[in-house]
């Protein structure tokens, strides 16, 4: 088991990061918002950590906090601007935001040169991106010290989402998803809760981006192109959007399968596509479909009932 973990540690790292990203889009989807800005916020988080750690000696944990704070600070005004839009229009607006972030990262140094005296200053380094120095991770309690922060981060998010799921807040989000108008007639401040969900999702994505920086190490704009946003959406679509277990399942399956199917060489992406297609046709509510789990539960609890009778 330990050997298995150490042999596949980079795959496990990426699974955990993708789970965090899947959860970040889940919270907006659970509110009925199709927001595709997560790749953009991930870029903000990753660049924040990368710039802080290359330009100063501030410890990583402070960089992570700064990344999440910046994510919240940007998500608030942007959320106020775009959350008046619905459905596909919201998707287009948030997609635009992701592209703006990418293009700023690409041309960031030109902007810096406008305001700075030092015309040779390189911070974003355009298409080549920022390369963090490699450090051999030390093993702590069986896991490298680069994996622990991500694992803790995912556990904290899952704990928060699990607590929220059956709380007043969680039920309000579900009510907005199911019928926005009906929810507002029940006295729910729809605008307020939508903004809250958007900010929460963006903060989670920024944190995930920040945590991915020491692992990917090369932070360039190409990491955060449109297809990254689509990948994140796929985790939630495959897993299901009604329960927080959904994106965890989706991200785990979609990240580990290509590794397991390495023997299929360049054909292995077909399997991912096939799985998403089949799940959309036969399991429209995702892998975490409450009906499947209801069935599973009945099978498991069946002998118990017999014992009672």
């Amino acid at each position: 088991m330990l050997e298995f973990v150490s042999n596949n540690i980079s795959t496990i790292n990426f699974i955990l990061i993708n789970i965090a990203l899947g959860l970040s889009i889940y919270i907006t989807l659970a509110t009925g918002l199709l927001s595709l800005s997560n790749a953009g916020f991930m870029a903000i988080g990753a660049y924040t950590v990368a710039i802080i750690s290359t330009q100063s000696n501030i410890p990583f944990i402070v960089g992570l906090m700064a990344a999440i704070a910046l994510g919240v600070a940007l998500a608030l005004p942007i959320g106020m601007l775009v959350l008046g839009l619905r459905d596909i229009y919201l998707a287009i607006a948030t997609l635009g935001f992701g592209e703006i972030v990418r293009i700023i990262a690409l041309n960031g140094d030109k902007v810096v040169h406008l305001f700075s005296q030092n015309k040779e200053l390189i911070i974003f380094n355009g298409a080549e991106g920022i390369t963090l120095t490699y450090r051999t991770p030390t093993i702590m309690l069986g896991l490298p010290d680069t994996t622990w922060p991500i694992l803790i981060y995912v556990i904290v998010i899952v704990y928060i989402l699990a607590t929220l799921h059956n709380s007043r807040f969680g039920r309000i989000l579900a009510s907005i998803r199911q019928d926005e108008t009906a929810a507002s007639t029940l006295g729910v401040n729809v605008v307020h809760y939508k903004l809250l969900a958007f900010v929460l999702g963006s903060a989670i994505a920024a944190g995930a981006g920040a945590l991915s920086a020491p692992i990917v190490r090369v932070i360039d704009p190409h990491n955060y192109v449109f297809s990254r946003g689509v990948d994140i959406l796929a985790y939630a679509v495959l897993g299901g959007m009604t329960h927080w277990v959904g994106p965890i399942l989706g991200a785990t399956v979609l990240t580990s399968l290509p590794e397991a199917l390495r023997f299929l060489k360049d054909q292995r992406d077909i399997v991912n596509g096939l799985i998403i297609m089949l799940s959309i046709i036969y399991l429209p509510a995702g892998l975490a479909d409450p009906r499947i789990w209801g069935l599973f539960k009945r099978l498991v609890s069946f002998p118990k009932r017999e014992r009672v009778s």
Partner: protein
Amino acid sequence: MKARLFLFPMIFMLLLVCFTAIDVSSATAESASSLSGEIPIGAVWSMTGAAAVYGSTQKNASELAVEQINQSGMLGAAKIKLITEDDRSTKEGAITAFDKLIKEYKVVAILGPTLSNSAKAADPIAQAAKVPVLAVSNTAAGIVEMGDFIFRDSLPEMLVQPNTIKETKNKLGYKKVAILYGNDDVFTKGGYDAFKKALNDQGIQILATETFNKNDSDFSAQLTKIKGLKPDAIIVSALAEEAAGIMSQGRQLGIPESVPFIGGNGFNSPKLAQLAGPAAEGAITGAAWLISNDTPGNKAFVEAYNKKYGANPDQFAAQAYTGVYILANAIKTAGSSNPTAIRDAMAKIRDMDTVLGKFSFDARREPVHPPVVQIIKNGKFVLYK
């Protein structure tokens, strides 16, 4: 209560999926201690994703070279076992592929990865594990600087372009040029940096520097501005698709044929002449390899490649093919499949006969071999004279 009942089977299933999914492929590669049995060598190519065009020819060429080496008995009783992995043109893919090759397959050396930024993300893993890496297509700066186990046989743009500028300047005698480059791609941006430096060193005036993005299709604004400045030549650092668009639109806008397009490594694709048609005539580019090269074994390589895959090899194929031969040569000289011994033998390679010409590594593990300048004539690359 209901929620909890619903939760536990889910978490259980998650763990099950997670652990069964990654565990199915476990390989048994015995690492040979002397020159016998199978010597596992890893190769990481971008076979899917954005760089798949380059990765597929690299895969073909490396497999051809391994086949030839194993048939020829170059390594005596030993055979090379090439383990090819796809990195999906992503850094994450390259990192997991390196991890798998080193920890699970216990490879003695790694070829690749295709892209420079993937190399920057993944190579330190091999450096830390003391497994030599031979890059065959990374042309950006900062590759061999990552450590003493990192080599490359692909001439960086910083070595190729000064030669291109020098040769073309001597023959065409141009004094002022305009530059057009893609600024969102490491490859084309690196080419631009190299050209800029070479032009400054040669004292050539740069009239204008214009940029575009990958997948752009309209370059008329940039080209109109350049046309108005009347440059003697136009330097283009672009991948084949964009370069073709720039050339055909440039000629349509009336940039005279006496003003040549001079390009970087991105021009080195047979696709350029196909896409741009007559507009590509006379385009000049610096390269590491030319199909009509008169180098040892080049003709046989082109023929064997053509026979096996039904297409002509390009520069990337030639460099990957050479890479396998360099590794085999190092293994043979070292007389061992110990990664550190291979590294030491590779660092000592001087004047080796390859399809790229006489090949040496310098003290920084950078490649040394003569670059060529080529020109498109009748839709084909020929040596620029």
